[in-house]
């Protein structure tokens, strides 16, 4: 109880988190930045400069892919929200007891297997010789095989699938905490379903919506497998580009710059999202 020992305890608790954050997060990102501002001018020769960033802005391929990735991620986030909200609402407000637990668990199932397996499943379903194409032919809806793989829609399906859980869970949590009597009070005061949704339910669910959207957006933006495996020849993804720079092109410098830009983009979108919805990172993410 004396202040000496509690000081010691405090520092003992402080040490691991500092070690973790400094050694694994902060220093590596500084390192990444340092590498991103070194330009390669010959074999094993480098000099400092913003050439890599310049390359990004002068090469349309790079920034287009960047924009494309951002836009598709935002679309995927919006889709996930639209598809997930009714489900979360159903689980939180329209079911009780065992049914509720079961449905909630069922939402978690995809999370329990790796993204690779999920994506693999979609490949089996969507490919030209896949299950859906065959089923449609069998039902006589189409006469020949249909290719549903290798396009942006397939990517969307995969992204939404991969991330829906991260939308539904925080939504269920926040909606659960919405007291039924608030909704009843809304009706009692003459509200309609839409006005109650708009004025009571959604404002209450805002922290869940925001935290769900942040997580889904981050997952989509940083996704690699889904666009690679489900996407077609035009489906470039910025993470794939980073991978290419690091692995195929051995160009760590440009890859680092890309990485930093992606980081900046994600921080920016998250920041803007938080500002627009008047939420704080600590409050929304702290409660997931």
């Amino acid at each position, binding site marked *: 109880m004396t202040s000496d020992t509690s000081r010691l305890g405090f520092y003992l608790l402080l040490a691991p988190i500092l070690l973790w954050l400094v050694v694994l997060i902060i220093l590596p990102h500084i390192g990444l930045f340092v590498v991103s501002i070194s330009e390669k001018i010959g074999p094993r020769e480098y000099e400092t400069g913003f050439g890599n960033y310049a390359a990004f802005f002068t090469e349309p*391929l790079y920034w*287009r892919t960047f924009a494309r990735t951002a836009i598709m991620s935002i679309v995927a986030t919006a889709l996930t929200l639209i598809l997930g909200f009714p489900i979360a609402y159903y689980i939180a407000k329209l079911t009780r007891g065992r049914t509720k637990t079961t449905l909630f668990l069922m939402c978690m199932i995809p999370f329990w297997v790796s993204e690779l397996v999920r994506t693999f499943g979609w490949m089996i379903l969507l490919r030209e010789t896949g299950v859906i194409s065959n089923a449609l032919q069998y039902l006589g809806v189409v006469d020949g095989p249909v*290719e549903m793989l290798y396009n942006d829609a397939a990517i969307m399906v995969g992204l939404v699938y991969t991330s829906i859980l991260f939308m539904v869970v925080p939504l269920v949590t926040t909606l659960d905490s919405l007291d039924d009597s608030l909704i009843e009070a809304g009706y009692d005061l003459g509200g309609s379903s839409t006005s109650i949704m708009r004025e009571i339910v959604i404002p209450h669910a805002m922290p869940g919506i925001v935290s769900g959207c942040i997580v889904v957006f981050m997952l989509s933006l940083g996704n690699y497998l889904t666009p690679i495996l489900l996407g*077609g020849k035009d489906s470039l993804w910025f993470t794939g580009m980073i991978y290419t720079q*690091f692995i195929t092109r*051995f160009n760590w410098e440009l890859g680092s710059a890309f990485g930093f830009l992606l980081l900046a983009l994600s921080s920016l979108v998250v920041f803007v999202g938080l500002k627009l919805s008047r939420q704080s990172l600590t409050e929304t993410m702290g409660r997931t």
Partner: protein
Amino acid sequence: ETLRLLTWGGYAPDEVIAMFEAETGHTVEVTTSNNEEMIAKLRATNGGGFDLAQPSQDRIASAQEEFGIYKPIDMSKVNAELFIPSMLSATAGNTTYEGEVYGLPHVWGTSGLVVNTAVAGNVTDYTDLCDASVAGQVSYRLKRPTLIGFAYSMGLDPFAAYDDTDAYQSILDEVEATLTECKPNVKTYWDGGDEIQNLLRSGEVVASMAWDTGGWQLNADNPDITFVAPEAGALGWIDTFVLPARGRADDAAYDWINFVMQPEIAAMITNTAGNFTAAVDGDAGVSADLKARYQGSFDQAAIDNIKWYPPVPAGLEALEGATLDRINAAN
């Protein structure tokens, strides 16, 4: 000792490993990969993490120059008699950097066309993949062999331009235009050997630029599908043995090299990988079917027309990369 082997799919069949482990007492851990990733991994580890790697011979000298990730071959530990002398010396020539030899030949083969002749018999050259008759049913890799194959097919000579950056760039520009135009024809760009085989086998793809071995393996199941040496010439490659700079099990690595180059073992590898090896008498034990398929694809003219990859000068891949990116991005 544990031998950590970084190689292509099919180059280290389980039965061979079992025999090797039984004979030498080493254990083998295999990581399958491709040229780019092999180099990338070794670069990231600064030449560590693996004890033996198998990139293609054209990609060794430049990587060594840039990253210094390999160590020279100690010929005294290699049983040179197991190697076909011409290949040994050709590889030595192409993988010399600052007077040291870094590579030994292992498997060789070609890239060309794999075609379902029943539906796409008209595809006989790389550029035929862009023909309207096979629209949406074509595949190739978005990698440098495709650029080079198309260049030859378009009447250009990319290898000759290797040392002239500007000339090479203009070749690339032409190829880029063609491939960009060809893009709507492509179903998907393939990545791994089995992937393209699956696409061809299921009929989703009917013509493709691919490795010869894939074509021959498919031929066994479906006689309509086979490897076709393109009119402009197949692209010849040799995959090698190299020692990562910081490999820890050199002895095991040399043991492995000497073991797999024995004729019987080489034949086993040929039978699984589908490609012939640089082992003396390696083709003796190879199945007659495979030989027949090889002969069906390559007549003497075609063999003479094989374009063997010269070493890639440093810096060239950056140009190619940019071209590939632009093709990828084009709409």
